[in-house]
């Protein structure tokens, strides 16, 4: 039993790994950028890795650099983190079905939920002979480890890397675009995808780059709720 278990876990790793390569590229790059930035503010690799490992929230960690360099205000940090990460609420609602009955590892999967992990797990079905639980586990864990590793590398050797990485962050844009296209293959998803794009563009035009996410979520939620009967039949 033990060997069969470890064999099936290994099999899940082998089938999950290729799907995480774009995230590897993006997270090592952005994680390093974060580690370097923290270093520049006087926080060595120990601190940046601690933040990445405990909070694991990409864009909010960049925002939090500001919070670490002004007057001490933990409540503001908590509130801001909740707002900046609010999109996870929608990922959670989307994952209620997939993560149902996951048992002990459910809390682990939920803790490691991020934009990339959500998009991959929602879009990519594990192969038939691979246990979905182990598959989700590996996607989540690998993405998480890439981010922590990137942060560590940035904090330790970031200043010595000198090849021209300009534009490399596009890899995550490309990941979301491809997974969006994958979603659009199913006819019933097309209207919702269109609503997501249009709602966010409207929010961007009205509220600007800095505050785009929450108004966009509201616009999307209102339109989907209003059109629910039509979309979900």
């Amino acid at each position, binding site marked *: 039993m033990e060997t069969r278990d470890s064999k099936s876990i290994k099999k899940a790793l082998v089938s999950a790994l290729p799907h995480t390569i774009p995230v590897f590229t993006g997270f090592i790059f952005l994680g390093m950028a974060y580690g370097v930035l923290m270093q520049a503010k006087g926080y060595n690799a120990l601190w940046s890795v601690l933040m990445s490992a405990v909070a694991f929230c990409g864009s909010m960690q960049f925002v939090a650099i500001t919070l670490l360099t002004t007057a001490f205000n*933990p409540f503001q940090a908590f509130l801001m983190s909740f707002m900046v990460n609010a999109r996870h609420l929608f990922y959670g609602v*989307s994952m209620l079905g997939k993560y149902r009955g996951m048992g002990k590892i459910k809390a682990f999967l939920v803790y490691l*939920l991020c934009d990339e992990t959500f998009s991959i797990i929602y*879009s990519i079905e594990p192969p038939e002979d691979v246990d979905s639980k182990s598959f989700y586990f590996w996607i989540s864990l690998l993405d998480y480890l890439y981010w922590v590793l990137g942060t560590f590398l940035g904090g330790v050797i970031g200043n010595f890397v000198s090849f021209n990485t300009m*534009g490399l962050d596009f890899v995550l*844009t*490309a990941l979301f675009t491809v997974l969006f296209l994958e979603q659009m293959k199913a006819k019933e998803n097309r209207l919702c995808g269109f609503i997501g794009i249009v*709602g966010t563009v409207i929010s961007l035009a009205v509220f600007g780059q800095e505050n785009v996410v929450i108004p966009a*979520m509201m616009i999307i939620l209102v339109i989907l709720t209003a059109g629910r009967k039509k979309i979900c039949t």
Partner: protein
Amino acid sequence: MYLTGTQTLIIILSVAAGAALTRFLPFLIFPDNRGVPPYIIDLGRMLPPAMMGLLVVYCLKDATVTASPFGIPELIAIAVIIVLHKWKNNVLLSIGGSTVVFMLLKQTVFS
């Protein structure tokens, strides 16, 4: 460092708590042993494509549209994704190919 070690640690934990709450809240409200209302189930079906659309636009939000280069590198790279993906239908190829094109554009033509 501007804050003391303890203060930094508390800020890290506060940021982590805020993030964790956004992740756990839906699962705390609808645990495995409780039914999920039909409205939430429908949302769970409608939200993923919509949120992926949001993420695409969000990633492109910092592109310069009103001045040079008018978002052209982004547009070309997105076009490359769509064409490559229609043609080969290979996720890694579409992502890798378009990223290389985008980096080349940014570092040469539009640098």
